[in-house]
Every structure is written in structure tokens, then in C-alpha cells.
């Protein structure tokens, strides 16, 4: 029994040492084999970044790209607490600023995409919504994000720009929650991003409105200072900002910064 425990401990120790060793082995792409690149990205980037990640893995043999998709403020909080991330892509400049203020980003972050709001309605559009004024009409059940989260701040911005006052029946925690209330038909309309409408397919109908251009969300990306794979992290940033990455993002409905 004792001997077995000893052997197990030795094996564990050996594997830990080996793991540390491979982590420390430089940044040159020559020693890429069996490396993991961890990318923290805003939830709205999920499908685009997964596609870009596949491309990155195909370009860099032996590299696995792991994603953590969540709200940008959650992600930046985790990075501040020392989460082992190599790249951070935020859905707004505000949260990226928090990371740069703490010197967590290597160099300057690069803006790589923009997103604007759109009205999402159920496919049969039961309330007959055609404009932002219709959304503000009483009797229309509208769901928006709470002002505390970026999509809610954007919604407030377009309300001010358009001079309308929307009385929502619910202020949700995330854009996913808003979209869900619309796809299930609970709400007559919701304010979400263009890319969310596109990703939802035929479950919702998107209605563009001119005032949306008054609030443009900019997405910055940066390699992180504490990354053990700085070379790879920078390569991922380059892929996202390069032609191939931009094409994937454009297909998802993102605009160029």
C-alpha cells in the first residue's frame, strides 16, 4: 500500500515537473508541439472565434486552442485574479481598459470588430414592430439588457440619440437572456446586437433602425503579459486581425472598426 502511494506521488511529481518544463520552453514556434493556447473571449464571439480557433489549430500543428466564453466583465475579473489566459478579446473598450490599467496586456490592444444594436422580434412579429418608436409604444412587451451590462448601456445610448423612452418589462443580465425571451415569444421585441440576430437564424427577425449607428461597440483584442506562449498569443491576435479572421467575423455580422 505504502509503496503504491509512493509510486503514485512520484509519478504525479514527475508529470508536474514535465508540465512545468514544457511551459517554460521558450516562445519560438519551433517548440509548438502539444501546447495549449487559452483564449478568453466575449460571449458574442463564440461561433466566430471557434471557427478562427479551428483555423489556428490547422495552421499550428500540435497547438490546442481552448476558449472561455463569458461576459467581458466576468472575464476581466478572472484575468485580474490571475486566471491563466493567453489572449483576451473584449466586447467593449471599457473592460479592456480595466485590463490595460492593471498592465495585464502585452503592448496595446487592437480593435478588430464593431457591433451595433438591432431590434429582434419573433418571426411572426405579433406586435407589428417596424421602428424604434414602435418599440417604445406602450403595450409592446420589450426586453433590454440592464444598464449595468454593455448591451444595456448601448440600448440607453440609442434611446437618448433617438429621443424615445422605452419602458421595458424586463432588464436582463445578458444579451442571451434578451434573445431567449424573444425566441420563446415571451417578449414582443428586444434590443440585441446585429450578430445575435444573425446567429439566431430564423428563430427571430431582425429590424434595423437608423439610430443604431449612434452607439457602436468596439471589440479590442490583446495578448496578455502573463502568457507563457507569447509568440502563439500574438499569432492568434494576428489571425483575428488579419484577412482570414476578418472574413469569419464579417460572415457573422460584425463590421470593421
Amino acid at each position, binding site marked *: 500500500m505504502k509503496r503504491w502511494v509512493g509510486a503514485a506521488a512520484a509519478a504525479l511529481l514527475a508529470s508536474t515537473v514535465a508540465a512545468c518544463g514544457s511551459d517554460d520552453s521558450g516562445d519560438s514556434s519551433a517548440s509548438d508541439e502539444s501546447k495549449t493556447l487559452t483564449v478568453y473571449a466575449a460571449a458574442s464571439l463564440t461561433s466566430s472565434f471557434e471557427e478562427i480557433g479551428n483555423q489556428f489549430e490547422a495552421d499550428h500543428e500540435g497547438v490546442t486552442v481552448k476558449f472561455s466564453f463569458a*461576459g467581458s*466583465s466576468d472575464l476581466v475579473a478572472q484575468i485580474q485574479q490571475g486566471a491563466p489566459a493567453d489572449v483576451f478579446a473584449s466586447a467593449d473598450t471599457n473592460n479592456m481598459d480595466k485590463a490595460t490599467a492593471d498592465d495585464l496586456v502585452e503592448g496595446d490592444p487592437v480593435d478588430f470588430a464593431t457591433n451595433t444594436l438591432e431590434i429582434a422580434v419573433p418571426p411572426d412579429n405579433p406586435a407589428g414592430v417596424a421602428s424604434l418608436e414602435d418599440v417604445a409604444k406602450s403595450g409592446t*412587451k420589450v*426586453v433590454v439588457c*440592464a444598464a*449595468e*451590462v454593455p448591451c444595456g448601456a448601448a440600448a440607453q445610448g440609442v434611446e437618448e440619440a433617438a429621443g424615445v423612452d422605452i419602458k*421595458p*418589462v*424586463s*432588464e*436582463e*443580465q445578458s444579451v442571451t*437572456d434578451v434573445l*431567449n*425571451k424573444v425566441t*420563446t*415569444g*415571451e*417578449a414582443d421585441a428586444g434590443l440585441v446586437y446585429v450578430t445575435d440576430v444573425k446567429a439566431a437564424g430564423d428563430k427571430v427577425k431582425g429590424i434595423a433602425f437608423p439610430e443604431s449607428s449612434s452607439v457602436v461597440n468596439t471589440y479590442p483584442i490583446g495578448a496578455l503579459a502573463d502568457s507563457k506562449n507569447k509568440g502563439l498569443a500574438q499569432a492568434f491576435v494576428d489571425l483575428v486581425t488579419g484577412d482570414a479572421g476578418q472574413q469569419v467575423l464579417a460572415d457573422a455580422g460584425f463590421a470593421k472598426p
Partner: protein
Amino acid sequence: MARGSRQVGLPTWVFVPAAFGALFVVLPLAAILTRVEWGNFFGLITSDSSVDALLLSLRTSSVSTLLCVIFGVPMAMVLARTSFRGQQVMRSLVLLPLVLPPVVGGIALLYTFGRRGILGHTFEVLGIQVAFSTTAVVLAQTFVALPFLVVSLEGALRTAGGRYEAVASTLGARPTTVFRRVTLPLVLPGLVSGAVLSFARALGEFGATITFAGSLQGVTRTLPLEIYLQRETDADAAVALSLLLVIVAIVVIGLARGRGAI
């Protein structure tokens, strides 16, 4: 009950894991205390949105607990005092919300009481709008809290046994009289502790509420939802509100203990 009876000594090793277990529960609570900004604690918990959230939570949890008692007591009686085909299956189904992730409960409620749910149309005809209303919060809380009452009370009923009820019945008491004069007084402590557990569960309910009821100040945004939202922008407020919720929970448990229920 154990008071006065001779204590059987515990094996010494039991205390080690017990201490670790207790530490595991107490340490995170202590960690919250270390993070509270005492300087503006009072200001943070008395802001408009915090007060609205606390009052809404207390109100909805009370109504939910009442509903749990109204429906849970008869359910526990049927499960404890009768036997019928499929009773085991029935019991498992009733207790399902205990093990179900609350988000799943929220989705299920959405497809039942939502505008396009199976009962949604009936409700709309009757002029009742459940979606995005405080009613939806109460429904979500009752859904997750009901099993706690049923489980506690069924246990109490089984422990109490049916002997006194049988005696009362042979003396000519009608079933309702037996229930009122014999059963209820016997299982009252079990009922109170079940109700307290239900209240506590309703107070902490988050997943089903955010999925099913939405989140609007004073209408559907209960204290847990407010904490989750504040976390986005103001970590200090979230911590202060967390402590408030802990205090409320301790007060509720303390009151129940004081009455000898738990």
C-alpha cells in the same frame, strides 16, 4: 430529545473531517466579511434598488411559502398515509425539483405558463399575464421550494405514525377532526421546519426566476438577481448585499430554532 440520556462516545477521528467540513462552510462566509466595505455598507444596502430587491424577496418568499403549505401539506398526507399504484413514481416526480438545476425548472415553467406555453393561452383568455410579473417570481419560487416542505412533512408524518389517529377515529372523530386535533399538533414542528426550509429556498432562488420571470426593479428583480447584476459594475455593493442575504437567512433559521422547529 437526547437531553438527559447517556451520551455514547464518538470515535475521536470523527472530529477531524467534521472540523474540516465546518471550516469549509464557515470560511467562505468569513471571507465575505473581510471584503465588506464597512464605511459605506449601510449606504449600499439602503439604496433604492437594494431596498426594492429585499422587500420583493421577502414578499414573494412569504407568498411562496404559504402556497407550499397550502399544497404541500395535502401532498405529504397523501404520500405518507395512503398507498396506491405508482406512488413511488409519484413521490420521485414531486421531489424532482430538488435535484433539477433551477434553470431547467425555469425553462419548464416558461413552456407551461409562458405566453406560448401550454397554459399560456388559457391564462391570456382569462386576462392573467404571468410573463414578467411578480406572479412569475412566486411560481418559480414555489416550484423549487415545494419539495422541501413535502419531504420534511412526509418524514414527520411517518415518524409520528398513525396510532393516535387510529384511536381518535375509533372514538368517533371524523377524518377532518382527526387531522385538525391529532395529526396537525403532532407534526407541527416538522411542518414549521419544512416551511422554514421552503422560505429559505425561495429566498435564494435565482436560476428559475431569471429564466422565467425576467429582471425588473421592484417587479421581478429579487435580492439574488440584484446581487448578480450589481457584480457587473459594483463589486462592493454585491458583497454588501450578499452579507445582507446571509443575515436574513441566519435570522430566519434563528427564529425557527427559537421555536424548536429545527
